[in-house]
């Protein structure tokens, strides 16, 4: 599949800005046959920009540095990306017993511990086992079946409502609100998965628009679970789907904080600013 991706943002500041340094995590993740063209990147303020792959070879961070004065900043980014077609159900799941023995091995647990451990120091995805007893993992079946069962429970538990949460909302608040957007679905789902000993990570990216698909004009979020012999498999709790070629990944991390699309430092005297962004995913072929 060939897509044209666009990301545009406008930031308006309450007072003059005297220079800024920004980092955008909006360029596709280069792995599993996904190929993105060199991006087009333009800003309303004059400055320098470059791509850094220092975080991970597959992850492209776009840095922007400017020393000029401005009151607002428009950013426009676009790229063409090729995503190979995949059928998420056509995978070689291991026999249940073999899979179980790998999942219980010390090597597996330690190699994946970073994404299994529900860490108190990262409250966005932290819930205790007692808090997630409502979500019951079936005893039988492959790991993927169990994950799908949990996904459906999380999907049923939450109502997709914009504007009730922010990017700072933590899992325990989502649990009480029972509402949220894609990243809230993901944070709660991650907490449930990790409490059941499943290695799971936050994933951000673009979603090809379709009817009844949630989170299409914004950047999307979903979960990747590590499954023996198969690797990291994408699961979307907001749309009750397995991730396929309609999803274009940007990066993964422990929670939203590792995948924030924009982080920046601006030299100004007021903290007040308004910002909005939108994305467009256009299928070319």
């Amino acid at each position, binding site marked *: 599949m060939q897509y044209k991706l666009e990301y545009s943002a406008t930031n308006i500041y309450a007072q003059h800005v005297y220079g800024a*340094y920004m*980092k955008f995590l909006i360029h596709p993740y280069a792995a599993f046959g996904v190929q993105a063209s060199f991006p087009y990147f333009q800003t309303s303020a004059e400055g*320098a920009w*470059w791509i*850094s*792959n*220092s*975080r991970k070879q597959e992850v492209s*961070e776009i*840095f922007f*540095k400017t020393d000029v004065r401005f009151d607002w900043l428009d950013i426009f980014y676009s790229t063409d990306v090729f995503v190979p077609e995949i059928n998420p159900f056509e995978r070689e799941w291991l026999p249940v017993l073999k899979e179980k023995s790998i999942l219980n091995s*010390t*090597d597996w*647990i*330690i*190699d994946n*511990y*970073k994404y299994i*451990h529900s*860490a*108190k*120091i990262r409250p966005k995805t932290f819930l205790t086992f007692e808090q997630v007893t409502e979500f019951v993992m079936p005893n039988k079946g492959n790991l993927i079946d169990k994950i799908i069962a949990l996904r459906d429970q999380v999907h049923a538990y939450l109502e997709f409502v914009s504007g009730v949460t922010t990017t700072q909302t933590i899992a325990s608040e989502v649990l009480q609100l029972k509402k949220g957007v894609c990243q809230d679905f993901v944070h709660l789902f991650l907490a449930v998965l990790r409490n059941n000993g499943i290695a799971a990570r936050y994933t951000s990216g673009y979603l090809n628009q379709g009817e009844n698909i949630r989170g299409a004009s914004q950047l999307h979020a979903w979960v990747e679970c590590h499954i023996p012999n198969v690797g990291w498999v994408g699961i979307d709790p907001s749309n009750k789907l397995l991730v396929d070629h309609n999803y274009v990944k940007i990066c993964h*991390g*422990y929670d939203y904080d*590792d995948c924030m699309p924009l*982080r*920046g*430092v601006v030299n100004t005297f007021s903290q007040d600013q308004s910002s909005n962004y939108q994305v467009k995913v256009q299928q070319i072929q």
Partner: protein
Amino acid sequence: MKNQNLFNSNYAVKKGIYDEYVSEEWKVRAHYDLLSQQFSEYNNADYCKFNEEAKIVFFNEGITFAVYSDNPLGSEKIFPFDFIPRIIDHKEWSKIEKGAIQRNRAINEFLKDLYHDKKILKDGIVPKELIYSSINMSPVMEGFMPKGGIYNHISGTDIIRHSDGEYYVLEDNVRCPSGVSYVLANRNTLKKTFPKLFSKCQPQPIIDYPEKLLTMLQSVSPGISAPNCVVLTPGMYNSAYFEHSFLAQSMGVELVEGRDLFVKNDVVYMKTIHGPERVHVIYRRIDDPYLDPLMFNPDSVLGTPGLMSAYLAGNVTLVNAPGTGVADDKAVYAYMPEIIKYYLGEEQILKNVPTYRCGEDDDFKYVLENIDKLVVKPVDESGGYGISIGNTLSKEQIEEVKKSIKENRRKYIAQPIMSLSVHPTFIEGEDIIEPRHIDLRTFCLLGKNTEYVLPGGLTRVALKRGNLIVNSSQGGGSKDTWVI
């Protein structure tokens, strides 16, 4: 016990505490003979004079530190200095030196393993819960190898001498430990105060520390023969600002703040009047969370945006590496003997404070019976949380601690409460010499193919009578430390 002849004053030592200067039989220890002879010529008026002279030198040279709690605006105080030097016999020192290098090499291997293969966790030597509950385990360091394979370039090992006369390591500091500038300043001051004694005793020199430090920094630079090294400070309000400026000045490198640097194309530059100048090695005295607002704490104004990207791209070396804090946690400390054995195949040279693991039956029994004499620590909580000190607990609290241990035996370890040795110290105001508790911070440098321990280190002294806390923020001072 009192002895009228010691320092011409009422010098008394409590039984059961090790005195560095005299033995229990009131005999001056051999390595203090020269000092004892020299001091027998002085009286109280001389001591007051020495003290005043030392203070004037400290004042004139601006050897200060700031205590945040005293004054939020960061006013500075003269660093309290005691003019009676602590002397360590060279044979004892050689053991401390070897021990410090061994420990820090093992810590370096440990960090390399934690951020790569995690063998020590897989082999069950150190519990994984302990490592992953640590706020200092840095996910961005996962899979990244710093230049020269060195993480803890500069380490401070805190050592005490217990009542049994043995040295024990109290803690490891691998997050840019401070204090080394005071060692150099103390030596400088004392040379002026006791020139004769100094030339008689010939303590091992420490003057070349800045040179060794610079050589070490250059050895880990990203592949350039004449690298540009800088010292990165949080600024003049930091408690150790004196040290930052002292080290930069004595190494002959620039002292910079975060705003003096910028990053372009993953390369770090310093703003100078001649235009941007590339920086290769940063001896940073800023804590991990403040290094880069785009990677860690977004509110940090102390760091430089983009610095971590330049670091991970291999274009600049940070000294010490980010994420080293996971190795100097109090709970990790308990596993140091095993860590040394695991990576180096050696027994530890410097002892750890003995540790009882409640998961083992004999230890469990001992801990329950002697809980009032022990410090109980949970193994899966980092940062000093959940620690109970036996002799400060009420009966109810002791029962509570016992209950929690019984509920989850594997979760707890216990260590005896250690006593610190004492050393003759001049007490200002009372103008007499009395024993006061001391410890020792040694400074170890690890570079690419270089290992160095500063001879002596920083002896810290608790100036209040009976006080065991030697930190400068709590009213502690320091002494010059001589290895002879």
